[in-house]
């Protein structure tokens, strides 16, 4: 098993599949009366969050607690190099506390990589800048597999602000590893340079959402911040929604079985219409539930669990 989970690229097909299978085992727990496993009793998991992300932090916290780990929430928001403690000093503190795993959310790309150099425990990247968010990709893959029964051969359209999206990068890496075909869709200003070759072979790029929808098994809508228009990435929210938003007429272009995903939080009316978000195709609520199971699996395996069977 790998020691850290910093990037979707850290996962080969075998490891990724093991995590998804283990997550499925963990999910059966949710139906039990006693939802806790004693597996990580006596181990310490630190949630080190330099950004507000209540949903991600709660998801990791629930995952660690269901494995009986001691959880320490360390909110470092507002700290920076100029004021407050440096990441290095924080790392030394966590090291002294004997943290077995540190789950880090940070606005700077690569911060989890730096942290991994400074502590002995495992580091889990819970989102770093505009780089990656590998557990989100795992829960997305888990959700696709649950709904559609497989990942290999699926056509996944990832739509929106790919440039600033850590979710997109991790998804491209993981889905490619697991045999899905990915098409990135968005205005050219929000598609990063050389993306077709930067992450994985075979990644497609399209500027035309309508052309991609009929062949998509999965449409993953990315959050688009309205502030981007102030920086001329697109002229207006209205034009963005018209060209790249998923509304009801567009949803009807999808194949019967196709699903609609969103990592949240959504901008209803911007990248996704309310009736799409609330439709039976939408997996948005499941994604949240699956997030806990996947994160349980990640913590369990990184901290020394052996495999799916051991969870029982």
């Amino acid at each position, binding site marked *: 098993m790998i020691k850290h989970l910093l990037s979707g690229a850290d996962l080969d097909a075998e490891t990724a599949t093991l995590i998804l299978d283990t997550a499925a085992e963990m999910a059966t727990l949710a139906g039990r009366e006693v939802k806790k496993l004693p597996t990580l009793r006596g181990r310490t998991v630190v949630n080190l969050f330099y950004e507000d992300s209540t949903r991600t932090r709660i998801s990791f916290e629930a995952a660690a607690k269901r494995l009986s780990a001691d959880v320490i929430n360390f909110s470092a928001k507002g700290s920076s*190099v100029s004021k407050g403690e440096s990441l290095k000093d924080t790392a030394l503190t966590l090291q002294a506390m004997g943290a077995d795993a540190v789950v880090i959310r940070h606005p*700077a790309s*690569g911060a989890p990589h730096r942290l991994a150099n400074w502590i002995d425990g495992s580091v889990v990247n819970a989102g770093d800048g505009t780089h990656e968010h590998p557990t989100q990709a795992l829960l997305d893959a888990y959700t696709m597999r649950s709904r559609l029964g497989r990942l290999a051969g699926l056509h996944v359209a990832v739509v929106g602000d790919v440039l600033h999206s850590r979710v997109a990068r991790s998804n491209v890496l993981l889905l490619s590893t697991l045999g899905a075909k990915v098409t990135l869709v968005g205005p050219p200003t929000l598609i990063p340079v050389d993306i077709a070759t930067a992450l994985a072979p075979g990644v497609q790029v399209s500027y035309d959402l309508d052309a991609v929808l009929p062949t998509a098994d999965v449409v993953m809508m990315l959050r688009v911040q309205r502030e981007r228009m102030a920086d001329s990435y697109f002229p207006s929210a209205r034009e963005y929604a018209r060209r790249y938003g998923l509304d009801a007429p567009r949803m009807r272009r999808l194949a019967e079985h196709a699903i609609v995903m969103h990592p949240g939080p959504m901008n209803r009316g911007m990248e996704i219409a309310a009736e799409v978000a609330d439709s039976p195709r939408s997996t948005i609520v499941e994604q949240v539930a699956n997030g806990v199971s996947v994160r349980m699996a990640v913590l369990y395996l990184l901290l020394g669990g052996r495999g799916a069977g051991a969870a029982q």
Partner: protein
Amino acid sequence: MSSYLIRGVRVLGREWTDLLLRDGVVAETGPGLDPSGAQVIEADGLVALPGLVDLHTHLREPGREDAETVETGSRAAALGGYTAVCAMANTSPVADTAGVVEQVWRLGREAGLVDVQPIGAVTVGLAGERLAELGAMAASAAAVRIFSDDGFCVADPRLMRRALEYVKAFDGIIAQHAEEPRLTEGAQMHEGEVSTRLGLTGWPAVAEEAIIARDVLLAEHVGSRVHVCHLSTAGSVDIVRQAKARGVRVTAEVTPHHLLLTDELAASYDPVFKVNPPLRTAADVTALRAALAEGVIDIVATDHAPHAVEDKECEWAYARPGMVGLETALSVVLSTGALHRDGEPDWDLIAERMSRAPARIAGLAAHGHDPAPGAPANLTLVDPAARRVVDPGELASRSRNTPYAGTELPGRIVATFLHGRPTVLDGKAVK
């Protein structure tokens, strides 16, 4: 004044000879010189080069003496084979007045390890809004001839035009840090496949090329000299090549790190590889090496940029850009093979790119002369066969931010002489 007899040296790698240094000049050359009265230094086949001249050094004093001082930077320079360095103006306070440039110049004289030639800021406070008192700096004891806002680009085209014109009155030159600021807002590394993979905001090549293209046209229009700092892209090479062919008075420098390292190193997220302009692609490196050999790029300049530990031991985005380079420059250039001919170092070409041409551009009359009778005794002795593994802890610079830690590099500076006196002997600083 004491005299030194350097015995058995190969000037520019040629046949063995002796050099007698007396009263700050090379008094005699030739095999079998009489050693009486002179301190003898057995060179035993070492290569003698004119003392290296760095057109782009950040000495950090005044203001960031925790990162470097004029003295520690001078020592690093001497150990790297340099006898003159041009100190960039982005100090605190900024070197934008006669007072500050004279202070730096005086500190250089007091340290006495290299000639420190201050560069003056183009604009007040490097703010890019109005001209600093360029004439006062030129007329000061520091006799400033190079002006640069390095760290920042003189982005306003009208201000750049005025600066280029104004310094003609005293044969000045504007050294431009070519970076269109609107195209590099938030930029962290070269924009390309690697920046996309790493999720770091890109610094596109066009941000450099657009400014160089504009500046060579401005220099042509007003008949002035412009110097391009740390040119880093293949596209910039093409622009400078075309401008030179038209007779534009443009010169350009390349750093050792841009000749050796690529943007792939950012994948570690270790900010020791963060520098401005950023490390580029392997294709750029190839183009830069060829341009340096060809002469489209005139010189190697270090952009020696010391930084305190806390400014590098942090997240990539929060780290300051820059690398120390004085003590490794010649070795890095040797390692690239850019200035080799038939697989061997072309010492004459190395002297041209690292000593004579920078001395000419900077107007440093005492530097850039091959060791010959009557020439100022500013020279360095190189052991080309030596190899060493770079240990940041052994650097004389006050800072440790070398990207070459643990790298084995060829060549070693054995001795350096400044105005006839040794600053380095047996590879160690004399003071």
